[in-house]
């Protein structure tokens, strides 16, 4: 039996109030349960997306690193270092927030990421095609990495929310509602007790009145 609420007077008013609260708690419990289930199904979808995104990003990065290695073998790592100093530019990452059932998840977009060969800013005389490949595959992998970041963060956020909702559902189901119900029962019993007491008292008074009359 759950423990009862403290500081509750056994009156009819309190009883009515408590009954109302139980009703509300029940309703809230049902709603939260639905929210939890919806979030979990959303979570499953995102997880699938995440696994896919992770795999694709990792594969692309592997190719990119391989291309970089080849370029480095051909050009030497000092040259690569120098070249990587001139290919820099401002990357315009568009950051937005989307709302999935009260959870804010990020949406990121990048435009004009993959450049044409002549836009990268290095000369062609001292470089080779492998360098172009490396730069291109890194640009492509940034796209995938950004996508991955977006999905991974969504997974985290939704998971967080699922946990929070779960905790609330459990608190309602195992603590709040049983406690309210126990208190209601306690009050009902207490009131019955009072009723019996007063009934007995009336009987007693009546008896003593009768006794006085006959005397």
């Amino acid at each position: 039996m759950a423990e009862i609420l403290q500081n509750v007077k056994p009156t009819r008013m309190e009883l009515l109030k408590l009954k109302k609260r139980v009703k509300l708690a029940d309703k809230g419990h049902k709603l939260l349960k639905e929210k939890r289930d919806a979030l979990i199904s959303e979570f499953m979808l995102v997880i699938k997306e995440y696994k896919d995104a992770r795999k694709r990003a990792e594969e692309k990065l592997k190719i990119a690193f391989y291309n970089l290695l080849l370029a480095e073998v051909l050009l030497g790592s000092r040259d690569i270092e120098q070249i990587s100093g001139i290919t820099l530019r401002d990357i315009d990452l568009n950051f937005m927030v989307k709302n999935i059932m009260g959870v804010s998840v990020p949406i990121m977009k990048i435009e004009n990421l993959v450049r044409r060969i002549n836009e990268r800013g290095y000369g062609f005389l001292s470089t080779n095609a492998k360098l172009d490949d490396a730069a291109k595959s890194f640009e492509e992998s940034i796209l995938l990495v950004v996508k991955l970041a977006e999905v991974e963060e969504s997974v985290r956020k939704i998971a967080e929310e699922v946990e929070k909702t779960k905790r609330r559902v459990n608190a309602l189901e195992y603590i709040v509602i049983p406690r309210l119900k126990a208190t209601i029962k306690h009050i009902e019993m207490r009131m019955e007790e009072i009723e019996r007491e007063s009934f007995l008292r009336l009987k007693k008074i009546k008896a003593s009145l009768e006794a006085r009359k006959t005397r």
Partner: protein
Amino acid sequence: MEIALIGDKHTIHGFRLAGIKKTFLIEDIRREDIRGVLKDLFEDSIALILITEKIAEEIGSLLEEADRFRKGIMPIILQIPDSGGPLISKIDPMRGLIKRTVGFEIA
């Protein structure tokens, strides 16, 4: 908004070729400065911080600590594999998350 990268030499060269400006070579940062670097990144308008898995493993606790500087949803920290490919030994952090959330593991 920008992307930042903390990584080893290879990773940094690669991503610089693709044009990412804010790169931090891990060998250049002294261990005690990592905290400051992270803090600066969190305060700048950076949307995405990429960290190679090896480094992330090394400074894991600092990353968690830095998470407290985060305001709202930005920046997102993402671990990426370095030139050696993804770490196999590492347990996927998502795995535990899935188990806790759904209650069982999904293949």
